[in-house]
Structure formats: C-alpha cells, structure tokens
C-alpha cells in the first residue's frame, strides 16, 4: 500500500488539531502551522498526481480490512487531479489570508485545514457513507468559514446555505439507507457490482436512489433549481474564503461524475437515470448563470454567478458521458476553479481601494493602482469569458469539439451565448470600475504584494494551463477514459492485495 495516500487527510487533520491547541498563543504559530500544512499538502498532491498518471489505481485500506467490509481510499487520475487543484488553490488562498484576513474572525486557522480535510476526503474515499461523512466535515467547516468576518449579509446567506444543506444531508442519508437496504453494501465498487446484478423488482427503487443522489450532489454543485444559495453565499464571503469555496461546488460535480460513471454505470438497470436529465439541467444552469452574470450589480456577485456558469459548463461536458465530453470538462475544471478564485481575490483588492463604493458596479473613486489591477482584471476576464488565447477558450473549444454541431445545437448555442453574455458583463464591469471613475487622478499608494501576489498567481495559472494545454488535456482525456472503464476500478478495489 502506498502510505502517502492517507497524507492528504492526516496532514490537515493534524494541523487543525494543533491549531486548536495553539488558540490563545497569538496568531503567529497558527499561521506557521497552516502554511506548513498547505505547502506539504501541495507537495503530497503533486506526488500523488504523478503516481496516478501511470494509470494504475492505488487502493488504501484503512485499518487493513478487505474492500467490501472496510473503508478504502482510492486514488485514480480524477482524484489525483482534483487533489492537486485543491492543493494549489489552498496554498494561494492561505497566502492571501495571511495578510490580515485571518484576523477578522475566530479560529480561521482551525477551520481552514479542516475544510481541506473534508474536500480531500471526499475526493479520495471509495465508500458512499464515508463520502457522506466527509461531506459533513467540509460543510461544517464551510458554514463557519462563510461566517468569517461577521456581518448581516453573511449571516443571512449562511442561514439559507446551512438549512438547505441540512435538508440535502437528510436526502443523502435516505439514498444511502435505501441503497444499503437493497444491496447490503456501501463500498462504491461493490455497489456497482450489486446494482448491475440486481433483479427487475429492484429497478424502481434503484432509480429513486439515483435521482436522490442527483438532488444531493446537484445541490452542492449548484445545478439549476438548486443554485440560488450560491451567489449570495460566495458574494458575501471573505475573499480568501470565497476563493477556497471555488473548489467547493466542484466537490458536488466530482460526486455526480463518480456516481454516474461508477455506481450507475452503463450496464446496470438504473443506468442512464442521471445521464438522461443531466445535460438538460446543465444547459438550463448555464442560461440562469449567464443571466445572473449579466444582471449582477456587484463585482463579487458577478463572479459568484460565473461559478454557476462554470458548473453548467462542466456538467454539460459530463452529461455527454463520453471520453471527449468528460475530458473537456476535466480540462476546464482546474482552469475555472483557479480563475474564479483569482477573480474573487482581485475583487477584494479592487473593493478595498474604492472606499464606500466597495465592489458595486457604479462610477466611483479610482483605484490606487489602475495599471496593476486593470491588467489583472483584463487577464481574468479574458480567461473567464473563454476568449482566445487563454485556457478558457481551449476548454470551451474541447467541449464544443466533443459533439458535432448537428447533434449539439443546444450545447453549441448555449455555450457560445453564455460566453458572449459573460464577455459583455465583464467588459461593462471593467470599464465602470477602471474608466468610469469620477474622482481626481489615481493615487500612488504602494502595491500590496502580499495580496496582489496570490491573486496574480491564480490568474496566471490560466496562462500556465494554456502553455501546458497538451499534457493537461492528454491527462484529462486519460482520466475520462479511466472513469468510463469502471470494471478496472471495481477489480482494483475488490481485489486489493493483502498488506504484508
């Protein structure tokens, strides 16, 4: 067994606990522990990404119990990629937070690692109930982080978020209970076998389970009728928290992808239940998100709606259930996560320099460094709207190429239209923020590199993804191919050899 696999869970857990003990001794030691934890996490994720790239599935049996009885962690290409995406994002969000945002509330450095524990655990686990547990860990950390900094807007958004997710958890448990009652197992690989072999009398209940899971993961992923909590929550959260939350909705997308390709895969009686509704809902999400982007009155709300748009785009690719579609979505995923996170940080920088106007898209005082912030905003807008030459363009191109124009009339028109709406909204926001300033000439305040650096790096990752498009898209297609061959996953988990 590869013991590094458990490190993405143990590192943040240990860091969170140590930080809890360090409470009351000043923020310095806590910052050091958090920083060491995220740097180590990034290093471990890169190592795991390398080992996943070989195509072999690594299975880690917690407590050394054999697969259907004990809980296993499974590392495949998809998990490896998402771990690395999270690692990069967490480090940069933390670097931004270290400039003082972590002092705006209590226990930031306890909650931040625990949030990472939940996210990494959800990506690695191979057990459905364990997925529920990690979902709860990441949710309770996110409830507290969303409130970080306090204020009426945050409390109001969080109340909706918490209540909705508690209902979602109840649905998740109902689905888990029904699946356990039908199949007698909760290991995802074993579930896939049992579901495929189930009799016709169980088909109806299995379909109910598939749809219940679609509702639960759709809520996390901000799928159309369940997306209304996201703009308020992400738009009101503190900047580094909002940046970290950019990966949070991707956890729902990951879970949808995993269940639709593994448990309810192409051969079972409940096959196609998720795949039949997902493309339609994804396109509707895309439209709703684009309209939100177009109508947003504040920069943060605009970026939050961009997260909804990205969820729609990703699910439109995943909904096609073929190598090209899923591969395109997986190439687009790190791009959209990093770019929206970078834009959240940039929006905070802009808002800080505009005084009372905050991030409202109205004419107001000029920002102190129009050159730096303007160039970064331009870079982020080009990447987010999907204009050439940056990675958003490549991702959307791959997505459009995955389906012929004749068959994908809706997909083509929606994706292109949403790009246009995002472009118009972002240009309008940029010209109001940077050119529509009424006040005197821009001030010459010192550039705050501690804050500007992480935001610039996150946006520059889009350039890196463009330069490295060939290997990244090759990896994404390999990951999609691996997902669409569930037999490989099932064999690897159920036949995991005994440890010496």
């Amino acid at each position: 067994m590869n013991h590094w696999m458990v490190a993405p869970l143990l590192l943040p857990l240990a860091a969170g606990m140590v930080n809890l003990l360090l409470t009351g001794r000043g923020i310095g030691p806590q910052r050091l522990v958090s920083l060491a934890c995220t740097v180590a996490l990034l290093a471990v994720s890169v190592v795991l990404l390398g080992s996943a790239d070989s195509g072999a599935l690594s299975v880690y049996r917690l407590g050394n119990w054999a697969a259907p009885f004990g809980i296993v962690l499974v590392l495949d290409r998809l998990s490896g990629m998402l771990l690395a995406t999270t690692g990069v994002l967490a480090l940069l969000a933390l670097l931004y937070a270290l400039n003082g945002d972590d002092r705006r509330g209590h226990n930031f450095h306890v909650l931040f690692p625990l949030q990472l524990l939940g996210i990494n655990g959800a990506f690695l686990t191979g057990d459905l109930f364990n997925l529920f547990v990690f979902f709860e860990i990441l949710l309770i950390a996110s409830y507290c982080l969303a409130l970080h900094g306090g204020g009426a807007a945050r409390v109001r958004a969080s109340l909706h978020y918490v209540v909705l997710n508690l209902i979602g958890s109840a649905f998740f448990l109902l689905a888990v209970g029904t699946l356990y009652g039908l199949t007698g197992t909760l290991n995802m690989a074993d579930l896939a076998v049992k579901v495929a072999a189930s009799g016709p009398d169980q088909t109806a209940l299995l379909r109910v389970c598939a749809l219940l899971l679609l509702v639960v993961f759709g809520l996390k992923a901000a799928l159309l009728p369940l997306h209304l909590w996201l703009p308020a929550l992400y738009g009101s959260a503190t900047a580094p928290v909002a940046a970290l939350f950019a990966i949070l909705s991707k956890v729902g997308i990951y879970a949808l992808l995993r269940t639709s390709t593994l448990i309810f895969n192409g051969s079972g009686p409940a096959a196609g239940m998720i795949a039949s509704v997902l493309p339609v809902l994804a396109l509707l999400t895309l439209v709703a998100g684009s309209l939100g982007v177009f109508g947003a009155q504040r920069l943060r709300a605009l970026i939050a709606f961009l997260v909804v748009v990205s969820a729609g785009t990703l699910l439109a690719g995943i909904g096609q259930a073929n190598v090209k579609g899923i591969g395109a979505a997986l190439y687009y995923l790190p791009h959209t996560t990093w770019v929206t996170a970078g834009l959240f940080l940039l929006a905070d920088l802009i808002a800080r320099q505009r005084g009372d106007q905050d991030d409202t898209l109205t004419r107001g005082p000029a920002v102190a460094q129009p050159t730096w912030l303007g160039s970064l905003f331009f870079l982020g807008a080009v990447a987010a709207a999907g204009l050439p030459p940056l990675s958003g363009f490549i991702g959307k191109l791959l997505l459009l190429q995955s389906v012929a124009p004749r068959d994908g009339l809706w997909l083509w028109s929606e994706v292109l239209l949403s790009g246009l709406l995002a472009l118009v909204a972002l240009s309008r926001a940029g010209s109001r923020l940077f050119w529509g300033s009424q006040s005197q000439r821009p001030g010459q305040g010192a550039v705050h590199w501690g804050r500007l650096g992480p935001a610039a790096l996150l946006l520059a990752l889009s350039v890196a993804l463009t330069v490295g498009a060939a290997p990244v898209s090759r990896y994404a297609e390999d990951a999609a191919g691996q997902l669409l061959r569930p037999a490989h996953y099932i064999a690897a988990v159920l036949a995991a050899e005994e440890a010496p």
Partner: protein
Amino acid sequence: MEALAALTVAVLVACGVYLLLRARTFSVVVGLSLLSYAVNLFLFFSGRLLGGAPPLAGAATATADPLPQALVLTAIVIGFGMTAFVLILALRARGELGNDHVDGKGEKR
C-alpha cells in the same frame, strides 16, 4: 410492523417538511430536527425489522444486521451537532438582522 414503521417515518417527514416551509427560523430548526429523526429511523429500518435476532455473523438462525446501527449512530451524532449549530446561527441571525424571518426581511419587532 413494516406498515407502522413506514407510517412513523412518513408522519415525521410530513411534519418536518411542513415546519421547514414556515417563515420563522425556530419552526425551521424544529422541522430540521424532525426530518433528521425520520431519516435516522429510516436508516435503522434499512437493516430490516427483525425481533430478537442476535447481531452475529455465522449463526444458524436469522441475524440482525449491525451495520445500520453503526450508520445511524454516526448520523445521530452529525445531526445533533448540525442542529446545535443551526440553532446558534438562528439566534445570531435574530441578533444581526433584528427579526427571526428566514430571509431576514420580516417586520421589526
């Protein structure tokens, strides 16, 4: 027995959903706890309703399944913690927003 169990879960869910749809945070919190009771019972019943069977593997007679009990224990702990959190959050919202409407838009009292 099955009918009684199903009816219990159904009544709890119905009451929970009704309270969840109320506009005041207190009713919503009570609704959430009723819903979680219903879900916990449901999880417990998913191991089948067997009276007097030992939770042992390999016995000749029918055995009760111990796993749903482990699941329900986890679910109870998580549900309890979450209910406590949402209660505190509701109180905080009452303080910050000046009323106990779920959207924070009710009349000031």
